[in-house]
């Protein structure tokens, strides 16, 4: 069943009438700032407002992007950060690729329980401060980092004890607690920029994209960990929204909600779980849609979908759905070379049939 983004979006408007309001984190941050407890790293330059849960507007910065990279993407799917840079270059957006950035360490934390909240929040605050001192808007490539930073913001705002501990650590580094006004994932930015991307796109490439059938999968930490600050309400729409804007026909499948099986620790030490979870998802995708590609926005899910299709042969099933990130799709639309600029050749599940179908040369 293909669906319209507007169908999904109706939930937000209804949510406005809800009795209970989740606390408005933006108002609380302002209050803390007035009390001198924290600093807010305000949006620099133009922004676009998109609606999140409870009718609250989220400001998406349109320029001056601090690129909080993903270690998983850089190591594993380097085409994704490359595409993120690419579409910004094409649209003339200024960005900062920082070599003083660290990993958010949330993957390690969720998988192993090593580390603690003070450490996790301090790492977050350090990276936030990097963007602040360089004069850029904090934007995130990785969904694990995104979920983690949303949660850290939530915890830091809500808990003075944690805040004080983190401030103490930061002071030892010569830094201060600056919480960004908005925690924005790169896929949200790409969604906010959908009109610009469409306008700047290569018409020939758009011709190839048009009519492709795709399913989407969102990282769990993108929308489940802290679920009230996502564009589109509780059910995310950004990847499908961007793709359908570019002409992809988005298809619904029954297992859209289910976790991909990455499981943080499972992908490393219990991959039988990862494979089994993938089996359920892929089976549903094949039976119900049999799409041309799977669109994702999450490092872990991208890895899992890409790397775990082949092993399904062990149970006699054959899947070959290219896994494409929203930004790789955007880069392709803008005319990127599929390998040299979008890095699709780093994907284990072959992308060549998809590129053939799109009429894009890759050799």
């Amino acid at each position: 069943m293909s669906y319209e983004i507007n169908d999904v979006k109706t939930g937000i408007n209804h949510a406005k009438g809800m009795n209970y309001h989740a606390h408005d984190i933006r108002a609380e941050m302002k209050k803390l700032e007035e009390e001198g407890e924290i600093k807010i790293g305000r949006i620099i330059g133009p922004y676009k407002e998109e609606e999140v849960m409870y009718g609250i507007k989220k400001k998406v910065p349109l320029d001056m992007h601090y690129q909080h990279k993903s270690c998983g993407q850089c190591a594993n799917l380097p085409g994704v950060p490359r595409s993120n840079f690419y579409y910004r270059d094409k649209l003339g957006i200024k960005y900062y690729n920082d070599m003083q950035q660290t990993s958010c360490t949330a993957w390690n934390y969720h998988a192993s329980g090593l580390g603690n909240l003070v450490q996790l929040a301090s790492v977050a605050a350090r990276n936030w401060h990097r963007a602040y001192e360089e004069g850029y808007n904090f934007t995130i490539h990785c969904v694990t980092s995104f979920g983690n930073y949303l949660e850290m913001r939530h915890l830091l705002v809500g808990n003075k004890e944690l805040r004080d501990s983190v401030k103490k650590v930061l002071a030892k580094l010569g830094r201060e607690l600056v919480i960004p006004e908005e925690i924005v994932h790169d896929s949200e930015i790409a969604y906010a920029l959908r009109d610009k991307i469409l306008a700047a796109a290569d018409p020939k490439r758009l011709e190839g994209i048009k009519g492709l059938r795709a399913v989407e999968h969102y990282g769990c930490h993108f929308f489940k960990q802290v679920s009230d600050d996502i564009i589109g309400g509780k059910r995310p729409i950004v990847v499908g929204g961007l793709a359908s804007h570019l002409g992809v026909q988005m298809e619904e499948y029954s297992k859209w909600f289910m976790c991909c099986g990455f499981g943080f620790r499972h992908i490393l030490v219990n991959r039988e779980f990862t494979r089994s979870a993938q089996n359920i998802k892929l089976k549903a995708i094949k039976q119900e849609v049999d799409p041309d590609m799977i669109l994702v926005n999450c490092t872990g899910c991208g890895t899992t979908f890409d790397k775990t299709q082949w092993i399904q042969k062990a149970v006699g099933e054959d899947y070959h759905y290219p896994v494409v990130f929203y930004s790789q799709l955007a880069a392709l639309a803008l005319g990127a070379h599929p390998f040299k600029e979008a890095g699709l050749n780093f994907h284990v599940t072959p992308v060549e049939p998809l590129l053939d179908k799109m009429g894009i040369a890759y050799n």
Partner: protein
Amino acid sequence: MKTVLVIGGGVTGLKAASELAGMGYNVSLVEKEDYLGGQVAKHKYYKLAPDLRLAGDVLDPVIKAVESNPNIKVQKHSQIIAVSGGAPEFKAKIKNSKGESEETFGAIVVATGFGHFDPTVKQEYGYGRFKDVVTNAEVEEMLNPNGPTKGELKRPSDGNIPKKIAIFQCVGSRDRQVGNPYCCRVGCVVSTKQAIEIKEKYPDSEVYVYYMDMRMFGRGWEELYGKAMEDYEVIFTRGRGAEVTLKNQQLSLRAEETIMDRPIQHSVDMIILAAGMSAGEGTIDAAKVLGIKQNDYGFLSPKDDFLSPNESSKPGIFIAGADKGPMDIENCIVEGAAVAAKVAGSLKN
């Protein structure tokens, strides 16, 4: 003799009006719709739990008692838009298609009732996206021979009669996420009643109820529940419906069978959402116009829940029925009578 204003022509308002008129008071009943009977009439409720008595059997006499009483002036399609003054002399502005008018009343009874919870908010249930996910109010309309399907339960998608039907309890009730942590108090019995009606009409069908607790506290409700299990083989699963998806054009639901500690995946033809009660629009408007207190969920707060349950926070303004919180029809009628007594008492003093 002072006139009493009754706002709302549902069962509570109707009962209050006829009781007051019976005691000799003049009553002005204002209803915003062009029919009397409130939600019962709006959604063409067919049968009532627990006796499966026709809703009309109950509603018609109540309406008749009002319409045949010369002391009651019924104004349909009308709304109160402003009220000034105080007890025992209120001036109310009534607006209808003909224009605005002002009348004076000795007391006001608010009986504005409830609204069915809109399950669109629960995106995971797919209401509004999947045609065959319907609410219990829609099922009432379908089961009613005077309804849109002439009494047949039909799948909205293809008009076929569903074979496997799942009913989800607690949709929009007992749910902090949507801001309704309270119990709707009638979902359990309505679902059980509908399950029985469906099984009676279509003995080959399978009806599954997904519930957390079956809260059967009313007269004869628990017995009805037993009957559904024993005589009609309605299958009750202890686990709240978690999500609905469409799998190869068939609805597929997820829940947990908590007795067995296992997740369930189940394909069905139709899903009925037992949408709970929320504060009706009329109630929210009335609270605004009259300036009376509401609770956290929009329902009206009595002056004292225990000691003066039918008095609002303002003297001379009385509240009754489902605008105070979820309530079944039986109790709404009791409330209507109770508030009438309270009003009469206050006007005598």
